[in-house]
Structure formats: C-alpha cells, structure tokens
C-alpha cells in the first residue's frame, strides 16, 4: 500500500501507533502505548556481520533483528489497565505475568485508510518488561517492549481500542 501522504509531507509521529493486547478468550485487553511519552522508537537491533574481500568489496550479512521499544516515562495514570496490570506484576515480582504474554500491534496509520484499512503488523508472544518504578513528582514505571518477530501482517479497520485486525500473511521470521 502507498503512503497516504502528500508529496514531501512528513508523517507525524502520532501515525505510528503501538498497541499492547493481553488476556485470553473473550476478555482480552488492549491499550495504546505512549500516553505522556515524548519520544519512543522501535530499535531493530540488527545483528550485522561484515567482511571485506581482497577486491575491497564489503559484504554485509544481517543475521537477525531483536526489535525493542522503550517507553520512558510510562506514568501510572488513572484508568490505565496496562499500568494496573504491570505495576501489580512488578511489585509482586510475578515475572510470568509479563514474560511473552503480550501481542503487540504496530499500526502504520500513514499507510492505508479507514476505508481500506490501516497497515499493521502483529507480533505474538511479546514481553513488556517494567524496568523500574518511582521517579520524582509522579510515579513512572518505564517499560521495555521486546518484540517477538512472530509477525502476522494485516490491517486494522479503525484507530481505537476496538479495532478488528485482518491478517493478510504470516511472516514468521526464522532467526
């Protein structure tokens, strides 16, 4: 799908959306990540090997990626289901509550539309890890999202928690 941007128009940061999903059966929860966060990027962490032959040609092999995205600060806000869930897990040292139990959607709202669907990828079995809790004036609990690379590509029909994800392909990256 083409970018739905005018020629030379920059995509605003709010068009790249990360949504966490957890729970099971009919009681799945979803929450957008990044409320009150000023800056956050997906670091792909590519594992790169380079070799230069006797002709001076450099070859690059990308062996794997281990994508990760940090959200700092991640304030505990009233009404945040994810904040409640993760803070409880962190304070009780219940690692299994956040180890590989999240599906994380990365929605590229600069590709697609509400008519045809916005481009999205779903990473199944991700970990969202609280790295600390505290801060100065307000309680912040910075988190790391570790993407699984168990990817299903597709689209979402709307930009809200009740979106419907429609898969197009399953891209299971072998490391």
């Amino acid at each position, binding site marked *: 799908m083409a970018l739905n941007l005018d020629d030379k128009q920059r995509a605003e*940061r*709010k068009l790249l959306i990360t949504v966490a999903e957890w729970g099971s059966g009919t009681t799945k929860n979803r929450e*957008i990540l990044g409320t009150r*966060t*000023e800056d956050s990027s997906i670091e792909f962490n590519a594992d790169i090997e380079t070799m230069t032959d006797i002709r001076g040609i450099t070859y690059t092999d990308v062996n794997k990626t281990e994508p990760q995205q940090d959200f700092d600060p991640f304030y505990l806000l009233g009404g945040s289901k994810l904040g409640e869930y993760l803070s409880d897990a962190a304070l009780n040292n219940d690692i299994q509550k956040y180890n590989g139990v999240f599906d994380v959607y990365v929605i590229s*709202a600069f590709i697609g539309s509400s008519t045809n669907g916005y481009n999205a990828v779903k990473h199944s079995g991700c970990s969202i890890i609280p790295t600390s809790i505290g801060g100065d004036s307000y309680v912040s609990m910075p988190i790391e999202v570790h993407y699984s690379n168990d990817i299903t590509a597709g689209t979402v029909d709307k930009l809200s928690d009740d979106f419907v994800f429609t898969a197009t392909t399953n891209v299971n990256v072998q490391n």
Partner: protein
Amino acid sequence: MANVDKNRAVIEYLQLCPDIAQSTLYFNFANIKDAVTQFITLAQDRAIDTPFIDGAVRKRYSLTIMSFLTISDNPIVKVAGYSNENISDMAEVQALIDWITGQDIARNFPDFGEDCEVESIRTTTNNPVLDQIDATKTPPLAKYSFTIQIDYIDNSQKIWN
C-alpha cells in the same frame, strides 16, 4: 470539537473563590479603586508546549491577578486586638493564593472542555508581590499581584479514539 473560551472558563472558576467573589472584577482594563480585582491575560509561548507521541500536547495557560486595596501609613503597633491594615490586606490577597493551592490539591480545576485535561493549577509565587503604591489617590492604593498557571493536555489532535 468546539473550542472552549479558556479565559471565560478560568474567570468563572475563580469566581467560586469567596474572596474574589466579593471584589469588583475586571478583565484586562479596569476602573482602579479600592477592592478591585483585575485579571490580565498573558500570551503563552508555544516553545514551551510539550508534544507527545500520541498527538496530545501539554500546554500552559497563564493569567495575572491584580488586587487593588487601600494602603495605610499607620505604623505597626503592639496593641492587643489591633491588626495593622496593610498586614490584613496582604492576608486577603494571600487567601486567594491559598485557595488556588487548595483547589489544586483537591483536583478541582476549571473546565477546558472535553478535548482538554487540566493537570494542575498553581501560582508562580507562594505569596503576592506589592507592585506599586499610588499615593496620588486618597486614600493611597496598593497594587498586589500574582500569576496563576494552568497546565493542561490538549487532546484535540489525537487520532486514537
């Protein structure tokens, strides 16, 4: 998404303060005399706005409040039951600052509409400043002032519902 007139919202909110409600209130221009409270708008530099990755923006609204009260040239005396007028007047203005602090603690904020969440309301100083004494008036008038700042999150440009 109607834009709420924040000046009107803040003035309606401040009128809930018993001490302000007893004053003659003016917005920007004032007919200066005793027991007048004047609100002065302040422009807010967009450079201090804080954008977030979801499209929300933290912004600030500021307003200066000026209180005009007669001022006395009586010295301070240690007489039981006697309160120096100037000290009492200062306490009246201090009461406004304390009221705003109390509202912030109780999270009672002005209503900026459904697209805005007010985070805090506070004064920039803990006590009022004496800006000026107009001795040409009879009795002389003192001008006290302080500035309030309201931090709020503008969600009007968020695309996630």
